[in-house]
């Protein structure tokens, strides 16, 4: 595996943990159970889970930055916007309007442009 490929693998794993961490932190921040809280748990448990996911993301992202430019790695981490949008809709019951989906799509397209090679 080349250094570039290893960097991409580490980065995509970091993206998955970023999406999971965001979901847990939202559940920790709101305290009480949201409309569709996936699993009933106290806020501190969600915070601990979120921090654990962030810890794994830190390790993976640090490895990714070892092989990738920050101006490439950082925009690619934007894939977490899509993951978070789906998790927010499915698990938190948030109202994702058409404008919000368009915004996410534009951001994803923009991050795609940001990662194009010179």
């Amino acid at each position, binding site marked *: 595996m080349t250094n570039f490929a290893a960097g991409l693998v580490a980065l995509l794993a970091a993206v998955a943990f970023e999406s999971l961490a965001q979901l847990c932190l939202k559940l920790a921040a709101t305290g009480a159970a949201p409309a569709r809280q996936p699993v009933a748990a106290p806020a501190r448990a969600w915070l601990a889970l979120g921090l654990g996911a962030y810890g794994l993301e830190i390790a993976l992202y640090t490895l990714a930055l070892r092989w990738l430019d920050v101006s490439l790695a950082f925009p690619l981490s934007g894939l977490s916007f899509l993951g978070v949008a789906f998790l*927010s809709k499915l698990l938190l019951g948030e109202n994702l309007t058409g404008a919000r989906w368009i915004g996410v799509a534009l951001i994803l397209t923009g991050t795609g442009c*940001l990662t194009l090679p010179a």
Partner: protein
Amino acid sequence: MKPAPGRLPAALAAGLLLAIVLDTFVQLAWKRAASDLPDGPVALALATVARRPLFWAAMLAFAAQLWNWLRVLARADLSFAQPITALSYLSVLGLSALLLHEHVTWTRGVGAALVLAGVGFITRTPHRTGGADRSP
């Protein structure tokens, strides 16, 4: 009362701005700390990073970011707040060129404009799906 679209409470706007600033600092400090690592086992690389002051500065900023982010999420939908932090792409792009001498192409300029437009769409939606503001 249903939150009005396009009208951000001042505390939420300040929290989002702080999140972007801290995010930018963390990204750049992290990159600096993780650069020029010795070849060899992954554990050696991580141990080397952990001995660098800039890494711990990034971690301190990360902790501040976490505290700030929990306050933001208490005030807004996750699917509203998180995409807005994409604005840090613009600041990282600019500062990477200035401080790390990374190349900025015209396609990255277009990308930055699209990100800005996307954030514009997001901010036109209500910042909260419903229910009471749980901000501390």
